[in-house]
């Protein structure tokens, strides 16, 4: 089922502080699938997220050309508060997201539900569930500002997941985390996907994208240059022309192919790499 459809989107911020524009962007997003957006900084990834979550055109002015349909309804016609409960947005920088008006992690997570006027008992139940789920019980009574980067990132996830949105837009969730913290965040993303959420993820860690995504968009200079299934896109050497990078396994495959054109199936993850190299060795 198609949830989001972009038709010829063009956009330019009214005051350009080095932010990116969008040019002729077209895509379709199906329910329950995970889409990763890759590309160098300044390619337009975050700007595209801002359109999907309605910040463009509801907060940022500037001319939005083309159409963005969410469940068939144009983004301009959506009411922002309805959109907010439909689409959850997790910020690149958890410092930006944490409200600053709440003294404890528990209250921070409850804040969104309070604003929606949910019953207190229900709020407590839902917040406790999420705290359990993300394994952050030991943080519940702490001040959000006392937390480490990784802990703040998990609280930022909790505050959005508790609202139970159908669509999650997640902008570089692991950029400040160590390998363990990164793994934890991807476990959460995997869980959300299993729950049938539709996820749009901006991320630079390509090995993890290869492992978790269904589809990949490659952006450069405000345009989607390549899009398709993860196996197709991340095995294309052309992605490197856009400075978007490729997983180590694909880079290995490309190097193998360069030295022996018979090695022609570029792997994108470890198990594919093992398989293709063994096949090649036995030839």
């Amino acid at each position, binding site marked *: 089922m198609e949830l989001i459809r972009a038709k010829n989107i063009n956009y330019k911020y009214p005051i350009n502080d080095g932010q990116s524009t969008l040019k002729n962007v077209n895509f379709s997003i199906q329910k329950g699938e995970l889409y990763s957006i890759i590309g160098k900084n*300044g390619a337009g990834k975050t700007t595209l997220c801002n359109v999907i979550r309605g910040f463009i055109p509801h907060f940022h002015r500037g001319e939005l050309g083309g159409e963005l349909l969410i469940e068939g309804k144009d983004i301009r016609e959506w009411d922002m508060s309805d959109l907010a409960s439909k689409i959850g947005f997790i910020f690149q920088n958890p410092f930006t997201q944490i409200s600053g008006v709440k003294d404890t992690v528990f209250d921070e997570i409850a804040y969104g539900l309070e604003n929606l006027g949910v019953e207190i008992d229900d709020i407590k139940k839902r917040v406790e569930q999420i705290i359990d789920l993300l394994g952050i019980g030991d943080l519940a009574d702490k001040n959000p500002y006392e937390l480490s980067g990784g802990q703040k990132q998990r609280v930022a996830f909790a505050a959005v997941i508790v609202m139970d949105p159908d669509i999650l837009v997640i902008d570089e969730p692991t950029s400040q*985390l*160590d390998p363990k913290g990164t793994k934890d965040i991807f476990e959460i993303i995997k869980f959300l996907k299993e729950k049938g959420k539709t996820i749009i993820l901006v991320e630079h860690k390509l090995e993890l994208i290869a492992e978790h995504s269904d589809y990949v968009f490659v952006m450069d200079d405000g345009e989607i240059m390549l899009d398709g299934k993860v196996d197709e896109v991340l095995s294309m050497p052309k992605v490197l022309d856009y*400075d978007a990078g490729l997983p180590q396994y694909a880079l290995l495959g490309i190097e193998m192919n360069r*030295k022996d054109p018979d090695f022609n199936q570029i792997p994108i993850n*470890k198990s594919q790499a093992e398989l293709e190299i063994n096949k090649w060795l036995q030839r």
Partner: protein
Amino acid sequence: MSFIQIKDVSFVYPNEFTAVHKISASIEKGEKLAIVGQNGAGKTTTVKMMNGLLKPTKGDIEIDGLNTKDYTTAQISRHVGYVFQNPDDQIFHSDVYSEIAYGPKTIGLSDDEISSRVYSVAELVGIDGFLDENPYNLPFSTRKFVTIACVLVMDVDVVILDEPTAGQDHVGMVQISKLIDYLQKKNKTVITITHDMEFVVNNFERVIVMANKQIIADKNKREIFWDNNVIEESNIKQPYISELANDMNMGNRILSIDEFVEHVFSNKKEGATV
């Protein structure tokens, strides 16, 4: 005697939290090394002690013979520059030029000297097009390069980069590698904290691994990344290519794509299995 001498150093924060426990290391002038380990392992506290921002609560750190306890942070930071993990902890001017020029001004350099230094480091780190911009209008990764420029402009002997690779795209990574090469050529000591093991493989030989407030290993990257005990204890990640080589039972302690390819091609030629 080594240029940087860390002798039995511990650090306990005023709230009695121990961040670093009894570490020792020597680092030579012109050497480059990576410090890796999980968040909370003590990496940032360790490097902050090297530039005098923090003073050891036990033990001593000497920089070129100067014990950091006997000098102010300002004095030590003339020798050792530290680029913060979060650029927003460091930036306070409303345009990039003034931000970079601030350090040289405080040490009384002439306007001409300041401007020539600012332009040259800005070009070096690729931000010469943004000198009139407000740093806060720039993306995180570019702000990080602003803070790197602020340290380079002081022409210090030791440059410490705290997670320069965080939030960087492919282009930024290449820029940081180039910068490390450049500093090496100028005989600067470069100490880099990072979580990106491919970046370590591509740029460093010596690696210090920290875990649970201590240095648990200090040796060549190949010995580090093929030492299961170190990897397990520190929770660092083996490089992806090493992991693959390991799963495929290849010997040779492979670290990089080139090594991997060379290994399988030479084996195929000999007709042997991997």
